[in-house]
């Protein structure tokens, strides 16, 4: 049993791994956290995490460049229903397509597309960078979002955002000129736009919830 954090050349995975190790330790779970680019380790994992920083197209290409990885993800996440968490661009990759510097296909597990945040006001800075209040979607209580209620802040850094076709996929939003999708989910799949590994206690709580999650 393990948690697989998929390493596909996207940025710093060390802090993601360290946050998962800390959360597992606090839960008393003796759970190996593997940062891996080996599809077989992903296939064998109990839980799968797809992090991601950078551009949508680069990340999609990086994931596809690992022979067998996309197929294993389909089998493990869609076929076998393993708990899956996407973070930042890893969350955006759940979409059907991304429109950052071109048009690129995502995993297509949650209908919708990833588009540039509209700069409705010249005072609105892009990237959306910093701590923003996470607003849980009414009626969409989710086991991962426990303890996030109220005035919980997540750390965001992104210029593009996921717009799901079906509103019921949106688990949480933040306000940045307009509502921005902060978390999406269906079945055994959750994606968060913010960085739980950088969101202090709120982030560690979310990771702990993920480690306890039995969808």
């Amino acid at each position, binding site marked *: 049993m393990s948690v697989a954090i998929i390493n596909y050349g996207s*940025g*710093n995975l*060390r*802090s993601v791994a*360290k*946050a998962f190790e*800390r959360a597992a330790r606090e839960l008393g779970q003796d759970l190996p956290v593997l940062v891996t680019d080996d599809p077989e380790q992903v296939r064998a994992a109990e839980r799968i995490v797809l992090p991601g*920083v*950078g*551009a949508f197209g*680069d990340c999609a290409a990086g994931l596809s460049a690992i022979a067998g990885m996309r197929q294993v993800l389909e089998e493990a996440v869609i076929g076998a229903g393993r708990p899956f968490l996407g973070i930042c661009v890893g969350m955006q990759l759940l979409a059907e397509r991304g429109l950052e510097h071109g048009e690129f296909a995502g995993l297509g597990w949650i209908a919708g597309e990833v588009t540039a945040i509209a*700069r409705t006001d010249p*005072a609105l*800075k*892009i*990237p*959306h*960078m*910093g*701590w*923003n*209040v996470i607003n849980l979607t009414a009626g969409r209580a989710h086991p991962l979002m426990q303890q996030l209620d109220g*005035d919980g*802040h997540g*750390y*965001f*850094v*992104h*210029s593009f955002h996921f717009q799901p076709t079906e509103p019921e996929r949106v688990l949480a939003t*933040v*306000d*940045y000129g307009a509502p921005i999708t902060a978390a999406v989910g269906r079945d055994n799949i959750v994606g968060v736009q913010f*960085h739980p*590994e*950088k*969101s*202090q*206690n709120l*982030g*560690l709580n979310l990771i702990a919830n993920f480690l306890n999650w039995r969808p």
Partner: protein
Amino acid sequence: MLKTRIIPCLDVDNGRVVKGISFVNLVDAGDPVEQARRYDAEGADELCFLDITASSDARDTIYDVVAKTAEQCFMPVTVGGGVRKVEDVRRLLHAGADKVAINTAAVNRPELVREAAEKFGCQCIVVAIDAKQSVPGKWEIWTHGGRTPTGIDAIDYARQVTGLGAGEILLTSMDRDGTRAGFDLALTRAVSDAVSVPVIASGGVGTLQHLADGIIEGRASAVLAASIFHFGEFSISEAKRYMADAGVPVRLPEQEKAEGQQ
């Protein structure tokens, strides 16, 4: 609502924090990791390490500091100082930095900003600008820690590096740095208004009102300070409470929220 960030900055020389501090209960006051943990616990929104190590054979010490901090602090960390090439950016990100600040090397060769942003994403490339007023309403870039004038206009340069892919500007007034007289608000506002990316105001903070001024009058997205936090004059939570009272939206520390609810 997005909150204004308060960013304590630690100057690190040879893997050790320089400038004295008066935090109590620190086992090792010069240990950057221990100070980072303290700021983390106080509710700092980000942390900045400025590596001022002069000797090139001691340069690797910063990677170790960053790696150890990332193991213990689950908050964003920016690292600057001595970043000269894409490989330096890669190593810092790999060690656990979330953002890397490029200063002199970007002035010498602005294309470095584009190369780093294309490789790692705009979100992790900060361009640090050290500016001095030349004539009223005009500011010039200085490099090498404020010792070398370049003749480059700070506003033009801020626009240029943003166009090349900088995701954030760390703006330091060399006229105000170390004076405790407050930010150069005209400079801060001129750069903030000129670029679409967030601007971090830096240089000159002596009071908590200065922090609020940087946001309200300077229109910065974040404020960075070193000495007022190091010397224990003010805690991060005091700064946040002050800013909240001044009408600046901030993320208040968790224990304070809990106390407020009781």
